[in-house]
Every structure is written in C-alpha cells, then in structure tokens.
C-alpha cells in the first residue's frame, strides 16, 4: 500500500518526464483507437455514399432492358392491341400477392424517359436527362419535392403541359433569366417491339413543349439523381407514352406492319420499401426472391424480361465485400504506424528512466534492492499507463474523427453523412492494449535501470552501449532455427521441392514466408553468439533484405492468385525495414564518419567552428546507437509507408498512358449522341473533322470514326437455359473501322485485348525474337472479327466470333466466360445464334460509356463487338440500322490528361448543340468526353481511396515529429553539462544549437534514405502486381519525395530548435555544475 502511495506520488513528482510517458502511451492508444474508428467508419461511410442515391428505396422492379418498360401488354395473350391487360394492371396484380402483403411497407411507381431538353430561345440542348413521372399519392418514404423556398411541391397541381424542373438542370439551361413561366422543348425516344414479339424494335419519338412552373431542389429521401431532371405527374407521362406508341402502331399498321405496344399505364420502375421486420441481408434477399417467384407465377414469362432487385441488400453486400479488403489494408498500414508509435514509447520510457539514473544509483548505494527498484518503477508505470491509456481514448476518438474527415474529403462526402463509428469493443481493447504496451515497454528499461553500475552512475559517467545480446543470441538463435526448419518441412506446396509451383498462390507464399525468415535469422544469431556479434547482425540484415528483394523481384512475378496477401505484404515491408535498419545501425560508425567528412568537405573554406560542431553531432549520434537507431527507424518506418503509397498511387494515376492508348484504340476523344443516333447520312465524323480542321488550332482532329452502338441486347450464356440470360450492349464495327492503314496510316491501334493471344487460332505476327507481338496480335483478332472469320467452339464446330469485354457476375465477383467459350444472341428471326468468344477486350471507350444514361454506372454491363455482317441480323440493332451514335476522334495532342482537350470539347459541344447545327441536322444533342476521363472515371474509386490512404499514412508524420521532439529533449537534458563544457571550450550558442539540430537532421535523413529505398521497392512491387503485368508504368513521384524530405528536414529542425536554444542559453558556469 505504501509502495502504491509512493508510486502515485512519484507520478506527480517528476511532471515533465511523466507527462512525456503519458503522452507517449496516449499516442499509442490514440493511434490504435483512431485506426479502428477510421476503419469501422470507412465501411459505414462508403455504404452511406452508395445508398445515398437510392434514398429510402429497399428494392425495385425494373425491365431487364434498360430502355424498355414493364411490359403489361405482354401479359395479355388474347388481344395485344387492347389498352387494358387481362386481369388488371401490373400494380394491381403485384399488390394482390402474399409476397407483397407480407413484406412490403410502401410502394411507388415511376416512369422514366431518357430525354433531350432544349431551351428554345437560345437553342441550348441538354442531352441524356431524365423526365420522370411521379405518383402524386406516393408514400412519404419516397421523398417530397420542395422548391427553392422550401415549400412542398405536389405534382398533382401540374397541368399536362406544365413541369417542375430540377435546380441543376435549370442552371445548365438558363444563365441570367428567370426560368419560371418559360418554355422548354423535351424530346424523348421510347422503344417498342414489333409483332410477333422480338421481330424488330422500333424507336418512337415524343416531343413536347412544356412550361416551367417551379424549380425543385432535391427529392429528399427518394432522391433520383440529385436535381438535374424534370418532373411530371405519372399519369401525364404514361398517357404520352401510350399515345405515342398507339400512333406509331397505327402508322405501322397502315404500312402492313404490326407493333407490340405497352399497356395504358407503362412503368419503368417500381420502388419498394420493406416492412420494418425485414432486415437488410438475408431477410431482404428472401423477400426479393418471394416477390420474384410470386410475379413469375402470375405473369409467366415475366422473369425473362423483368427483374426484382434487392437494391439495398446488393449494395450492402458489395460494400461489405469491398470494405473488408479496405479495412484489412487500413489495419495493416495502421499496424505499421502503431509500430512507429511503439518506437516512440520505448524511447520515452528509456528517457524517463535514464533521467533518473543518478537517483537510482543513490537508492542502490543506500541499500535499495534491485527488485525494489523494478517494483517502484513498474508501479509508477501502472499509474502512467492508466492515465496515458485514458487520455489516449479521448485522443483516439478525435483522431478517428479526423480520419473520417479525411475520408469525407477524399470521397467528396458531406462530412455529416459519414457516421463516426466508435464501438465499446474498440475502446476496451484499445485501453488494455495501451496499458499492457506501457507495462511491457516500461519493464525492460526498469530492469535495465536496476542493473546500473552504481559507482559509474554516481561518478556521472555514461554507460557504454551493450556490445552484444549475450546469451539471448544463443537462445533465440536456436529457437528460431528450430521453428524455421520444422516449419519449412510442414509446407505444402514446398518451394524447396516444388520450385516455382509453390509461388503461384499468394496464400502459400504468405504461409511460407515467416518460416524462411526464422531459418535466416536463427543461424545468423548463432553466428552472432559464437563468432562475432557484428558479423551476425550484418548477416541478419543482408539476409532479410535479400529475401525481401527475392520476393519482390522474383516471387511476386510468379504469383497468379489467392485470397489473402495482406500479411505477405506486411512481412515484406517488415523484412525490408528491419534489414535496412539493422545494416544501418551496424554501420552507423562508418555512416557518421562519412557524414562528417562530407560536411567537413562542404565547410572546407569556412572559418566558423563548423567542423567542431559537425564532429560533435555525428560522433554523438554514433555513440548512442540504440537511441539513434530507434529514431531513424521511426522515420524509416513512416517514410517507407508514405513513399510506398505515394509511388504506387502516383504510378497508378500517371503511369497509365500506354494502357489508356491501348484501351482507347489510340483515340483521344469520344463524342456521342446519347438520345438520338445520328443518321449516317449526316456524315457527322466528316462534319466534325471539317469544322475543326484548322491548323492554327492547338487541338487538331486528325481522324474521326463513327460507330453504332445498340442500347442493350439480351443474350444467353447457355442456349438451353432460359435463366442464363443477361444483357449487354453491342457495338457494330465495319471492316475499315480501325485498320484501314492505307487511308489512315496513323490509325493503327486496335483496342487492347486481355486474353492470351498466343492461343488464338488466327494468324499471329512475331517480332524479331520470335515472340508474339502484342499490338499486331490484337490487330489480328480484330481483323478476324471485321472479316467475319470463324473459330471452333468447344465441340470443334466453326462458329462466328465476337469480342467481348469481361462477362462478370457481380454477385460472386467471378468472370463467367472466357475465350473459346460460346454465348448466344437473339436474331431478328427469333432464333438464337451461337458466337465463340474470339478474345476478351480490356474495355474501351465504346464499352465503358454508359451512353446517355443515368440508369446505371458505367462499365457494369458487358459489351459485345460484332461485325457488320451480323449487325443486320441481330435483334439488338434492328430498327436503328444506318445510324451512328458514337464517334471516336484522334487529335494531335500527345498528353491525354491535357486540359486543352477538355477545353476543346466545350467548343465541340457548343458547335454541335448550337441552334445552327440543330437547324441543319435536327436536335440530336452531343456530349464529348476525353477517353482518359472515361478511364479516370472507372478508376475514380481507387484514386479516392489512394488519396485517403495517403492522408492516413501521412498522419504518421505526427508520430515521427513527436519521436524527434522526445529525442531532442532527451538529448539536450542529458547533455547539459556537456553543453556547458562545449561553451567553455569556445562553442558559440548557435554552434550548440546547430550540433543538436544537425544530429536530428542526420537521423531524419538516414530515415528518409531508408524510407525512399524501401518505399520505392514496395511501390514497385505493388504496382507490378496490381498494374496487370506491367501495363502501369512505374513512376517515382520526385515532387512528393522532395516534399517528404522537406517535412523530415523541417521536423528535425522544429523538434530540436526549442530545447537546443533553451539549453544554449543556460550560463556555461551553471551547466558545468549540473550533475544530472
């Protein structure tokens, strides 16, 4: 009890030392809590971001074809021309099912039309906008429209020719004028089918002049897509669609054709909110399935053309899967930052005990036992651990909030939308982790303190650094060797037996790594014990580095798959770090001498006492090997992490030019007409080239090609399985679309193909070394497609080919079809045609554009490339033949990221969407994007995550600076007498300051060099693994590294300057009297 009281009193007796310990522990706990909070909030935040767009909607029913309607007419077999389907409307049928009654709390029906909106006075056109019909009686869960004054708007108040317009759309169309009361022309195209079903799809256009009654902000809970759309009552829009199709039917009938229409109440979406008891996940999945089955039973073929989606559940599942990996990554990086924090704590604890060395010496001299010294120090450490951990919890929550704030910036959230998730579990685990950490880090210095040489301490002589680990080298060397060898024997596959085959799965490599490390480190420690300590350590360092490099430059290249990998990456970083730190520490003497010589050389003509100053700084650093090592290791860790992430994300951001060129077929711009395909007769490509063929312009279009892209088509993975249907976009290419090299010799890049082209049966080209030449191989496959060549299917039958982007199942994250396998497309005669996949495209602008749609994210649907021969026979292209809607343009601008291209596109849109063009060719509406931006858009999520990760790891600098501050204070405190002596010898105040600061700068710079080497190697490793076989060029962000160097440099100066200046101001006579 007395010991407890004494320990408690001691906590307050040495405020400055103990505050440092408390701060150190608090820092560790804060990092721990912060990483957990950040990681938990990341998942919650991403979920929030993803579900933001669906509002309160839990599920939805929609047509499989995105531009079609929920087709009531198909339900009616007796009379396809009757406006009212047999047995009631779709909604009436739906609401009668048990699946609906048991599970659905609220429902609303919507009709969306993709539309062009024209401002008649200026001729301005906005394309790809949505005209939405809203049910006036919809449940409040689906949102309420409010105008700019916050008043509720009710669509029931609108006349048929009146409309509410979203705020964002108004801003695009009207600049200075008051839009209320003005007219807008809205053009929509709707697609219907011929009779008998699927013979031909027909595009029907509706054009309306509408008056703007009010402007709405946002639909609130039922957000559609923010506020860039138009709103009418559902019934008004349904009537328009119905009448439009009816008129088209009459016109077709008069021409001897039959069109299949829709019912009088066509819908594109039905939104559903589940009842309270249905939990998102298994509950919502079951409810969705029940609804699907119920609808199938009522509507028969309904399942083939319509789907019920567990919208919220799917998002949650996808986010869970995605954030699991991200959280792991965050925790992995967090662990490394926490390791840096532990280095700081160890340093602080050692500092605290070193500072009271003399006191300990006196206690021992007057008879205190070693156990009493340890107990006293540990008891004090208990109080410090408790205080530090409690403070750390508070700091950690603040740090977590900071991370969430970064998350908000990186992902462009409104920060309020991201919940800060702080669980009890996090707090409890963090508290005890911090407490235990403080005790463990306090124990070793406490034991060391009890072992002091009393006479030496009382004489004020510094303890020499221990020369070796003593018998610890023997024990650990033996144990590590044993574990390593036994572990390697248990490996299956075993690299020693199976060679490279053992490297194909990252999980196997990950499992093997630690055993090899043990086998390396163990014998080296034995060498340290039996032969030479320094030699042993050098061997450990070299082996660790060598093994890490072997993995980075050899093993990584062999890895083909596996589920894990995070631990492997951490092993690699740890090996690199420990290896470089050990080698540096072992050679610190040589490094210090070299540093001293270099600075002396620079100062060779100086008359100031700089040589004396530098000698003191370098020799001091060398003499305190443990402290110096802890310090530069701290910076090495932080900088390795930062430079690693920096090089990786920089390479991924800017090293993709060649990849983009391949993916985009060499084109720089994509210009497309999302709503109304331009008739080929317009010759838009040529118009574009002519209009902008101005040699004085910086951007010069050298070529432009038009393509036709179908809105969507139905295909089957297996011909005899009706459930294997999917939708895809199709692009028709002509024989001269890409490879008319005689006419356009520069236009030689076909789109990049993913598949192993050496397996294609088509003629291949070889380069001088006999290796297949990728560019030509791509060209071969594309040419085979353009020339309508055939290829054997899995049964050996020759079938026409197509090229596809990845056919991906997002529910399982698997690729469903590979090269050589077949898919089946609908032909206009109602039959299915088998195509063999000739190759898989890595994606291209034509496939990645979600043309004119707000209906789904880009890149989520597969795209088939077919030739013109099949285009005419495919149902997907029927009714829109001879039109083109996508144009690729090539310019003379080399830099695809250039903002000049963006500016140029504004001119192109201005020209194509202006009154004169529309008057000449009709209102089509053109959108221009750079091909790079499409690619960028696809990788946006990754870029944002990198950004967040960089912000996250750069917080490690806070740890680093704190570490330096500790070292600076410690260094100055223990050098008071020495500083007095230096001053007596003729060191000026500023010489003292410079020597202290220089010592820290050098340690920081050693950390920087280690961090640069390791970070760059790790960046290279990660880039080569994730860059898809070297398609991402590895780049070193010199600017960023310069910034890190500057931060390190400034950190060292700022950390040391205050204590150094203060120490230099102590009168030398006082400092000389100081006994520590």
């Amino acid at each position, binding site marked *: 009890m007395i010991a407890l009281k004494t320990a408690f009193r001691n906590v307050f007796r040495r405020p400055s030392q103990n505050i440092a310990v408390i701060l150190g522990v608090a820092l560790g706990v804060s990092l721990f809590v912060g990483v957990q909070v950040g990681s938990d909030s990341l998942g919650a935040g991403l979920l929030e971001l993803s579900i933001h767009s669906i509002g309160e909607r839990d599920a939805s029913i929609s047509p499989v074809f995105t531009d079609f309607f929920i087709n009531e007419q198909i339900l009616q077999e007796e009379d396809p021309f009757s406006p009212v389907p047999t047995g009631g409307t779709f909604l009436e049928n739906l609401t009668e099912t048990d699946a609906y009654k048991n599970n659905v709390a609220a429902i609303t029906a919507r009709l969306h039309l993709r539309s062009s909106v024209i401002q008649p006075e200026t001729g301005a056109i906005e394309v790809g906008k949505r005209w939405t019909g809203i049910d006036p009686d919809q449940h409040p869960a689906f949102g309420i429209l409010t105008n700019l004054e916050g008043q509720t708007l009710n669509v029931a108040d609108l006349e048929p020719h009146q409309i509410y317009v979203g705020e964002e759309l108004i801003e695009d169309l009207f600049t200075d004028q008051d839009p209320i009361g003005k007219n807008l022309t809205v053009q929509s195209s709707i697609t219907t089918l011929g009779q008998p079903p699927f013979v031909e799809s027909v595009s029907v256009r509706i054009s309306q002049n509408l008056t703007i009654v009010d402007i709405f902000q946002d639909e609130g809970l039922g957000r559609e897509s923010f506020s860039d759309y138009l709103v009418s009552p559902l019934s008004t829009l349904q009537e328009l669609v119905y009448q439009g199709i009816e008129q088209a039917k009459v016109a077709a009938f008069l021409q001897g054709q039959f069109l299949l229409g829709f019912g009088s109440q066509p819908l594109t979406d039905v939104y559903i909110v589940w009842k309270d008891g249905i939990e998102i996940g298994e509950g919502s999945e079951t409810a969705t399935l029940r609804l699907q089955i119920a609808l199938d039973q009522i509507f028969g073929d309904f399942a083939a053309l319509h789907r019920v989606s567990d919208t919220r559940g799917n998002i949650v599942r996808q986010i869970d899967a995605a954030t699991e990996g991200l959280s792991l990554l965050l925790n992995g990086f967090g662990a490394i930052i926490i390791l840096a924090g532990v280095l700081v704590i160890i340093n602080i604890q050692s500092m605290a005990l070193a500072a009271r060395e003399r006191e300990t010496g006196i206690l021992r001299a007057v008879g205190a036992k070693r156990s009493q010294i340890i107990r006293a120090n540990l008891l004090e450490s208990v109080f410090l651990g408790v205080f530090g951990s409690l403070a750390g919890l508070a700091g950690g929550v603040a740090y977590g909030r900071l991370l969430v704030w970064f998350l908000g910036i990186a992902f462009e959230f409104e920060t309020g939308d991201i919940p800060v998730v702080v669980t009890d579990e996090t707090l409890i685990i963090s508290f005890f982790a911090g407490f235990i950490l403080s005790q463990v880090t306090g124990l070793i210095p406490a034991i060391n303190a009890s072992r002091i040489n009393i006479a030496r301490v009382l004489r004020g002589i510094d303890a020499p650094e221990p020369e070796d680990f003593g018998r610890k080298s023997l024990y650990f060397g033996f144990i590590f060797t044993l574990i390593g060898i036994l572990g390697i024997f248990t490996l299956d596959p075993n690299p020693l037996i199976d060679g490279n085959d053992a490297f194909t799965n990252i999980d196997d490599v990950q499992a093997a790594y630690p055993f090899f490390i043990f086998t390396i480190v163990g014998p080296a420690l034995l060498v340290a014990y039996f032969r030479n300590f320094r030699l042993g350590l050098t061997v450990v360092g070299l082996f660790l580095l060598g093994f890490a490099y072997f993995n980075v430059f050899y093993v990584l290249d062999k890895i083909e798959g596996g589920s894990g990998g995070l631990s492997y990456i951490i092993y690699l970083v740890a090996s690199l770090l420990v290896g470089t730190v050990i080698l540096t520490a072992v050679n610190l003497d040589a490094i210090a001498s070299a540093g001293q010589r270099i600075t002396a050389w620079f100062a060779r003509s100086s008359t100031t*006492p700089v040589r004396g100053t530098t*000698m003191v700084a370098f020799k001091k650093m060398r003499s305190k090997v443990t402290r110096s090592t802890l310090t530069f290791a701290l910076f090495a860790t932080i900088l390795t992490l930062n430079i690693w992430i920096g090089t990786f994300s920089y390479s991924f951001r800017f090293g993709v030019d060649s990849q983009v060129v391949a993916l985009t077929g060499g084109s720089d711009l994509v210009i497309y007409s999302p709503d109304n395909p331009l008739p080929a007769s317009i010759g838009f490509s040529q118009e574009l080239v002519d209009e902008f063929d101005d040699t004085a312009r910086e951007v010069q279009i050298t070529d432009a090609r038009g393509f036709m892209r179908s809105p969507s088509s139905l295909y089957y993975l297996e011909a005899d399985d009706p459930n294997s249907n999917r939708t895809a976009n199709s692009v028709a290419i002509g024989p001269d679309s890409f490879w008319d090299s005689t006419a356009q010799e520069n236009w030689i890049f076909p789109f990049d193909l993913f598949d192993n082209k050496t397996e294609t049966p088509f003629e291949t080209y070889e380069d001088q070394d006999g290796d297949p030449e990728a560019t030509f191989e791509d060209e071969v496959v594309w040419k085979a497609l353009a020339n309508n060549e055939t290829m054997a299917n899995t049964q050996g039958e020759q079938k026409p080919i197509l090229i596809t982007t990845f056919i991906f199942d997002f529910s399982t994250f698997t690729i469903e079809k590979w090269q050589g396998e077949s898919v089946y497309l609908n032909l206009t005669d109602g039959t299915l045609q088998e195509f063999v996949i000739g190759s898989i495209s890595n994606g291209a602008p034509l496939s990645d554009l979600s043309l004119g749609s707000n209906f789904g994210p880009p890149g989520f649907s597969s795209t088939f490339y077919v030739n013109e021969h099949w285009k005419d026979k495919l149902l997907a292209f029927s009714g829109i033949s001879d039109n083109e809607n996508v144009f690729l343009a090539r310019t003379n601008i080399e830099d695809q990221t250039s903002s000049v291209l963006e500016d140029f596109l504004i001119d192109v849109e201005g020209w194509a969407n202006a009154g004169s063009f529309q008057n000449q060719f009709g209102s089509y509406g053109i959108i221009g994007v750079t091909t790079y931006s499409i690619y960028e858009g696809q990788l946006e999520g990754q870029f944002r995550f990198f950004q967040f990760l960089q912000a996250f790891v750069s917080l490690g600098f806070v740890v680093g600076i704190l570490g330096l501050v500790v070292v600076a204070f410690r260094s100055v405190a223990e050098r008071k007498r020495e500083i007095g002596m230096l*001053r*007596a010898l*003729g060191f000026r105040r500023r010489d003292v300051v410079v020597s202290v600061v220089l010592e820290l700068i050098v340690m920081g710079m050693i950390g920087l060099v280690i961090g640069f080497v390791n970070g760059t190697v790790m960046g290279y490793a990660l880039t080569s693994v994730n860059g898809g076989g070297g398609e991402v060029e590895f780049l070193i962000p010199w600017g960023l590294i310069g910034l890190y160097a500057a931060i390190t440099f400034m950190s060292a100066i700022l950390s040391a300057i205050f204590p150094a200046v203060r120490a230099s101001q102590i009168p*030398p006579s006082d400092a000389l009297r100081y006994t520590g």
Partner: protein
Amino acid sequence: MTEQINYTTNPNVDWTTPMLDLHGVNKKYLEGTDAEVHAVRNADFKVYKGEMVALMGPSGSGKTTLLNLIGGLTPATSGSIQINDIEVTDLNEEERTKLRRNSIGYIFQHFNLLEFLTAEQNVMLPLLTQGYSDAQAKRRTTMMLRELGLGGRLEHFPSELSGGQEQRVAIGRSLITNPAIILGDEPTGDLDRSAEEGVLNMFRRINKEKKQTLLLVTHSEWIGSKCDRIIRIENGEIVQTGLEVTS
C-alpha cells in the same frame, strides 16, 4: 602572515607582462534581493606571463566563481578583468566565447571529456572550432598527446582511460590552441596522490618548456607549494596575492 615570493625561483616569468589583471572585480548573485550573495569582493591581482599560480581558499570562498569570471563564463557585476590586455568585461557573449576559444584553456575537476569522442578527437575539438582542417588538427593533436605520454591512447574513449590519463587528455585539450592562460578548476581533485603528482609534474613541465601561464584553483596545499605563488581568497575577498612585501 604574509610572505614574499622569491622572484628568482621561476626564471620563465616575464614580470613586465601581466597576462591576467583583475581590478576591483565584484560578483553578486540575486543582486538587490534579500537573498543577495556577494561572491567576489573587490578582487585585485595580477598573474604574469609564464607564472604558475595557485588560487586557494576554503569551500564556498568564491574560487570557482572567480575562475568563471576570468574565463568569461559568467559576467562580473563590476570591475575590470584583462586577459592579455583584452578587457573581458567589455566583451559581449559572442566575443567572450571567441576569447575562450582563442586565448583560454580550461581544465575541469571532473575532466569533462566528451564521452563519445576518442582521446584524439577530444583534444582536436578546439582546433576544429578554430577552423583548422581535420588533417592539420590531427597532426598537432598527435604530437601533443605523444608529448603527454598518450601516444598509444589516441583512439581510446574516456571510459577506457584511467583518471590520470583522462586529465592528461584534458590538459592536452586546454593546451592545443596555445592559449594565453590555462585556467584549472581543481584539476587534480579527482585523482589519487600519485596521479596528482604526475599531473602536477606535467603542469610544471608545460610551464617550464612552453612558458605557459597557469592559474589553478586547488584545495591542496601540496599543489600550492609547488606553484610559483598562492593567491588566497576567503569569503570572496583576496586575502593574499603572494606578491606582498613583508615588512
């Protein structure tokens, strides 16, 4: 009782050139407060070029303070201190530092060697602060340490040296810049008698061979007896300069 020094005992002394000249030097701590301490009172004495002088007095008499005042480590409250005709009390902090660097050699009781520097590096440090190159500094240091009998200890760290050897390194450090005066603060205080004798002989040799002026603060009457004269201080006052003429 006062005694007269035998002017002829040390033929190296240049009695026409005072190397150190103190006149009316006072040092007060916490001046103007109730706790004011008058550590040095009207100190007046001279030390001539080539002299080896002992400054003696009981504990707390102001010896070390006086030495610190002379070395410019602490400023005097009033009075004049001249070293080699340079008025120390007129110098600012920077100039005092320069004076120490170029004109004063310091030897401390606890040697005050830098633990992380070898014997050679400790000695060459003052030369480096004067702007010497490494090679030049090394050459002079090696010669100096050989002269001091430490030729085989150049690469040894202080912790690897005996107390006597450490103090010889400290002497080497104080001598290496050819200072005008060496100030020793209990330079043999931490040594046993035999080491003390060795160090004293070294002082004498330096004094004799290099005509080096030394002012040594000491408790040891034996050391005092080996110096040219003894200046005694009690309660901050100089009570004996050793140059008084007995009547």
